[in-house]
């Protein structure tokens, strides 16, 4: 399909969104990213049955943490799409990029010590 998506989106491959721990998302923010989104399989289509549903709950939890921290809940999202939906993938990448751009850079950017 040769679809393009914004170059600012960096992909981290995981076997399933169920693998994405809360801490992994927070670490990304510590390393200075402005936003994080999970691209999981469609609900009901998880190879591990509930991985994407668990990820959804964790994203919800991270939203509360980001609000507490003061970065704002909007910097983390989860989207569902099948591996056959390349079009949707690039659409989401654009959508999220615009959303984060509107929020501006993370106020914690590049100031965090390891």
């Amino acid at each position, binding site marked *: 399909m040769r679809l393009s998506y914004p170059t600012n989106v960096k992909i981290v491959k995981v076997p399933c969104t169920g693998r994405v*721990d*809360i*801490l992994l998302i*927070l*670490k990304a*923010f*510590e390393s200075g990213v402005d936003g994080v989104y999970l691209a999981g399989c469609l609900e009901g289509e998880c190879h591990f049955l509930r991985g994407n549903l668990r990820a959804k709950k964790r994203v919800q939890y991270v939203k509360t*943490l980001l609000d*507490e*921290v*003061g*970065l704002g809940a909007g910097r983390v999202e989860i989207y569902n799409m099948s591996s056959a939906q390349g079009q949707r993938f690039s659409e989401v990448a654009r959508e999220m990029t615009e959303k984060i751009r509107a929020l501006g850079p993370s*106020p*914690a*950017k590049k*100031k*965090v*010590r390891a």
Partner: protein
Amino acid sequence: MIVANRKTLEEILTMLKPYKKILLLGCNECVTVCATGGEREVGVLASEIKLSRAKEGQEIEVREQTLERQCDHEYIDQVRPFVGDYEAILSIACGAGIQYVAEKYRNKVVLPGVNTTFLGVTLEQGVWSERCQGCGECVLHLTGGVCPIARCAKSLLNGPCGGSSNGKCEVDKELECAWQLIVDRLKELNQMDKYEEIIPIKDWTTSRDGGPRKRIREDLRL
């Protein structure tokens, strides 16, 4: 297990305000099981603290450490080589652990990151429920294995009270009436004769009313 709740980040940040270098201490026992103060929660809290302070432009160094237990001095001793490098210790173990750390490092400020709440069980993944208050004189043999002290809102020894309705407690419609549970269980066990017996007035000196308690096993002492 001992169940605790994390304090809000805001409370924690207020306590940490004067410090730039802290040691964050978790515990591998109860607070790990109730997902409040184990290694993972240490990681998440450290991250939250660092992000918040970075946002304010006030960097903070957080050393993460999770001890096997914070209620035994041999484990607390493990941080002795480097504890001096930090201005304060933030502990997310139960209140016993936090205090023991404070006792061992007398010149360090030790701050609580959790509210220690109850002795309880895991009802299901992510759900914990109170079961015991450590009253020091257990009556479970009289009450069908259901604790009237911890589970009845009024700690009645001869219940239920008039507020029990449809098996729920008057304090909260979601709350099961402990005395309903006791009667149900005694019936199941064919022990309703126990319900007929009046449980005498409790001697609360075995509980907190007698002051802090201590247990000594002479044969085990060195």
